[in-house]
């Protein structure tokens, strides 16, 4: 009964707060509140309302807090007690099914381990801290241009620009700037065969910035960069061991680097972390007076001054560089420079974002298949516990209690699987890092830190929830039906079969998609690795790119290019030789971006798809050296010199693009005009060559339509302002020439011209297809794992199905059914599921193949053969998994089965 007084009252909120926490004991909530009210009234009469309210509040907290803590403690201990009970009951049940535990934990640990490993890799490549003290303030400084830099390409900057930045950038923006330049250099010592090693030319403070230390001797110092200083070299620990047999006397000895004797001044410690993992450190000589801003390839590393943001440094650099480059004759308009955090630059270099996403997704698919597998096994177990859940529900356990009891199995198994997966990764990490140390940059670390742990725990928890959900729903349904009644149990067995069909189907769909994707990737891998289809020679070809000397009209590039390879031919090792130079073509709609193309006699320049995408001015011998077939007419020869009428060869696909209505071979004799800056040259088509594929990974073997004018007849103006380099290629008998030899040949014709690092066509192609090789291998391994998991899943489902229909099989046998009929009856529903899943999986595989291909992951389209193969594998797994359980079921004694009934 409630009696509402009309007089003064203490603060209502405080009263109701206290009423909530007073336990149901001898003190009694209403009585306690009444006592407080009485005293509150007295106090209020004597001291006023404010004092009384304050007193009341103090009493509520003094009384309420201990009671509230007590209530929380009691609730917690009740929940923990319940959990302990569920845990014990789950463990007791699971102990009776060691095979279930082993299969579940192992398959989940596989999935969880893969997710952890993928997360560790991505974390290491993108987020893990760099090993240097000032790493957080390190930035990479490089030239930028809105259109002239191909995507994904880092141009670095020029030595000349680096020196200007050092002197002209405002004080207080950067603490320091250091530079380095990658190079492959040939070396010779008495103790090892001549070889080409990765070297880096460094500024004086580079070693200090990257905290490099010499185990013996010293590092490159600013004095070594002075003009006239003796050539010196610092060796990596590995090279010191290989070239000098760990001799402590190596310091002071001479190493032949690129044909010049260099004094060894130091050896790096084995744990040195350079950015380029170089075998040699050489001094980076200052830029000479002839150096230009266009001669890039220098990587500049800056350390921001304390308190300066990357944005502020970027703005200062851009302002300086834009001003410098605007006045430079050798550069087109629009060049500037920017500063990017070093971590971002290295992350871009490490793992391609799409590759990382694909890797994590694939690992999640494996985890998902493992989870579905486990869910299927648990569903069978839940149905087996129908009586227990029914009893619990009948004894008054709420839905939540029954659900919790059922979820516990999933949590235990997922937790154990996750922990095992994590443990394997933790223990295997060092071995993996050691195994792949040579392929990984020395600055990279792969810590299993908070980010990785969160990813693993999140993955495993979600898995546990997913795993537990279907069995939990089943348990709740059983609980609701108060499944002591046999009919309810029977019904739940039937619904459980439906759930298992769903899970089995889901697994097969995922497995088929993965098998199709990996088969596609393997097919793509074998296709891209077949370089013979590219339409040109790829073995035994090496070359260099000669940088033009800009602004020097007298250089007469055409003539020089024509004679360049003849000097190379003087070397007895050189068998064939040729020069080539890229011309950038553009349609009439993008006139400013390249050279225009016109069919002779027409006034309009070509545009859109009619423009061949590339042009390569070539010297005599180019087609022979590269083994590009001439299908009609002839190749470019010595005769196509300055005095002769301009001649060009055209590839069949370019001929088709320009003269769509004619047979490619019939265009010999036609005229092709090239135009730039108002200057036109008309070339007669003297031959038609076979098409070439430049990108071995391109979908559908896309060829690159080309026009090949004679290099001797192509005026400089056609190349545009940013004149492209001349490729000089040779094939040799025996060892390829050193950079020193290349430079000597080039400088004989073009004194002062710069020569790039030596390239090998085969090496470039192999590097190009490397990501596909990696993706193919990863997909292949994952597909095998998933197939094994799905086979286990099918085995579990079929075993359970047969076990739950033992009685039915026995009765059928007792009633005279023959074994074939029984087998048919048992296998028909399973076969229906497998067939439906295979059809769905096929469709899913086709769709996902398209999505991945659209995202730039070349897994190849899932075709009929692959899908058929996947389907056969699935049917095989189902048949193999059914064999054992079915044989056991057929051995049932019908009379015993009837007695049980």
């Amino acid at each position, binding site marked *: 009964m409630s009696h509402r007084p009309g007089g003064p*009252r*203490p603060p209502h909120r405080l009263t109701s707060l206290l009423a909530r926490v007073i336990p149901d*004991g*001898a*003190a009694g909530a209403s*009585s306690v509140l009444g*006592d407080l009210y*009485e005293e509150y009234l007295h106090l209020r009469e004597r001291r006023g309302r404010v004092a009384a309210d304050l007193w009341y509040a103090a009493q509520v907290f003094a*009384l309420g807090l201990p009671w509230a803590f007590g209530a929380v403690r009691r609730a917690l201990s009740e929940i923990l007690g319940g959990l302990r009970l569920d845990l014990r009951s789950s463990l007791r049940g699971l102990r009776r099914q060691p095979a279930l535990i082993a299969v579940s934990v192992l398959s989940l640990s596989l999935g969880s381990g893969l997710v952890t490993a993928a997360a560790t890799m991505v974390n290491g490549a993108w987020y893990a801290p760099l090993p240097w003290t000032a790493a957080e303030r390190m930035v990479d400084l490089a030239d930028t241009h809105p259109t002239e830099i191909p995507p994904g390409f880092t141009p670095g900057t020029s030595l000349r620009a680096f020196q200007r930045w050092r002197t002209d950038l405002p004080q207080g923006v950067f603490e320091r700037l250091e530079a380095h330049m990658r190079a492959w250099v040939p070396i010779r010592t008495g103790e090892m065969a001549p070889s080409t090693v990765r070297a880096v030319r460094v500024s004086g403070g580079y070693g200090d910035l990257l905290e490099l230390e010499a185990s013996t001797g010293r590092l490159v110092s600013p004095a070594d960069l002075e003009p006239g200083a003796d050539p010196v070299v610092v060796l990596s620990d590995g090279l010191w061991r290989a070239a000098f047999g760990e001799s402590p006397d190596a310091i002071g000895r001479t190493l032949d680097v690129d044909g010049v004797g260099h004094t060894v001044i130091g050896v790096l410690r084995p744990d040195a972390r350079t950015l380029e993992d170089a075998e040699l450190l050489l001094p980076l000589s200052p830029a000479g007076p002839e150096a230009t801003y266009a001669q890039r390839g220098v990587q500049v590393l800056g350390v921001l001054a304390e308190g300066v943001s990357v944005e502020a440094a970027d703005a200062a650099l851009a302002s300086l560089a834009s001003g410098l480059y605007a006045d430079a004759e050798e550069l087109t308009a629009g060049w500037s420079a920017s500063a990017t955090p070093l971590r971002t630059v290295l992350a871009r270099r490490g793992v391609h974002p799409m590759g990382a996403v694909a890797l994590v997704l694939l690992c999640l698919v494996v985890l998902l298949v493992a989870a579905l597998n486990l869910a299927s096994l648990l569903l069978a177990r839940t149905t087996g516990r129908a009586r227990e859940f029914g009893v619990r529900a009948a004894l008054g356990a709420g839905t939540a209690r029954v659900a919790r009891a059922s979820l516990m199995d999933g949590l235990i198994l997922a937790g154990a699987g996750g922990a095992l997966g994590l443990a394997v990764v933790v223990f295997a990490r060092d071995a993996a890092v050691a195994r792949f140390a040579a392929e990984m940059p020395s600055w990279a670390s792969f810590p299993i830190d908070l980010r990785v742990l969160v990813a693993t725990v999140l993955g495993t928890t979600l898995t546990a929830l997913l795993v537990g959900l279907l069995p939990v729903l089943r348990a709740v349904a059983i609980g609701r039906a108060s499944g002591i009644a046999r009919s309810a149990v029977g019904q739940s067995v039937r619904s459980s079969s439906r759930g298992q069909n769903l899970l089995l189907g889901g697994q097969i769909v995922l497995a088929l998609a993965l098998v199709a994707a990996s088969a596609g990737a393997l097919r793509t891998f074998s296709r891209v690795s077949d370089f013979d289809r590219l339409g040109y020679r790829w073995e035994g070809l090496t070359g260099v790119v000669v940088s033009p000397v800009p602004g020097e009209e007298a250089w007469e590039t055409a003539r020089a290019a024509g004679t360049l390879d003849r000097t190379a031919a003087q070397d007895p090792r050189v068998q064939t030789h040729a020069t080539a130079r890229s011309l950038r073509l553009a349609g009439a709609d993008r006139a400013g971006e390249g050279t225009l193309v016109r069919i002779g006699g027409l006034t309009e320049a070509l545009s859109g798809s009619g423009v061949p995408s590339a042009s390569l001015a070539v010297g005599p011998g180019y087609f022979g050296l590269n083994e590009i077939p001439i299908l009609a007419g002839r190749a470019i020869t010595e005769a196509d010199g300055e005095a002769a009428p301009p001649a060009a060869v055209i590839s069949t696909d370019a001929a088709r693009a320009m003269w769509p209505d004619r047979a490619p071979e019939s265009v010999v004799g036609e005229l092709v005009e090239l135009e730039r800056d108002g200057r036109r040259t008309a070339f007669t088509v003297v031959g038609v060559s076979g098409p070439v594929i430049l990108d071995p990974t391109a979908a559908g073997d896309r060829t690159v339509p080309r026009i090949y004018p004679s290099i001797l007849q192509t005026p400089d103006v056609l190349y545009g302002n940013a004149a492209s380099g001349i490729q000089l290629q040779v094939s040799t008998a025996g060892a390829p020439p050193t950079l020193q030899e290349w430079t000597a040949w080039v400088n004989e014709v073009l004194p002062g011209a710069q020569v790039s690092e030596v390239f090998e066509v085969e090496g470039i192609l192999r590097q190009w297809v490397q990501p596909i090789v990696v993706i193919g291998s990863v997909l292949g391994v994952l597909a095998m794992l998933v197939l094994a998991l799905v086979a286990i899943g099918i085995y579990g489902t079929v075993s359970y199905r047969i076990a739950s229909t033992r009685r039915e099989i026995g009765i059928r046998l007792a009633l005279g059914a023959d074994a074939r009929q029984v087998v048919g009856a048992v296998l028909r529903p399973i076969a229906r599921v497998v067939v439906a899943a295979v059809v769905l999986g096929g469709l899913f595989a086709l769709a996902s193949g398209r999505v991945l291909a659209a995202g730039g992951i070349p897994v190849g389209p899932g075709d009929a053969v692959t899908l058929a193969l996947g389907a056969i594998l699935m049917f095989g797994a189902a048949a193999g998994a059914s064999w054992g359980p079915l044989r056991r079921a057929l051995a049932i004694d019908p009379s015993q089965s009837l007695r049980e009934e």
Partner: protein
Amino acid sequence: MGELEHLILLAIAALDANASALGIRRRLDAEGRGITRGALYRSLDRLGEKGLIVWEVEEPAADRGGHVRRVYGLSPEGLDAIRERRATLERLWAEAAEVVR
């Protein structure tokens, strides 16, 4: 049974039919054994759990803000407990009388 619980049982007995929580507290205060409100209520809960006290609930009253009052009394077990405690004390006093005198 602790010292405080013993005193509360004695106060309930002394107050006879008027042993409300407030009354118990005031009685102990008068004896110089001040006790916080929280300690009193927790002790009453404990004595209730041990079955040493019983209580009656009065009708809700306006002067108590519409809340009830519980009036406590000793259960037979409660009576036994304080008697036993008294006997213990008397025995000890008898033995200690010579020294304490």
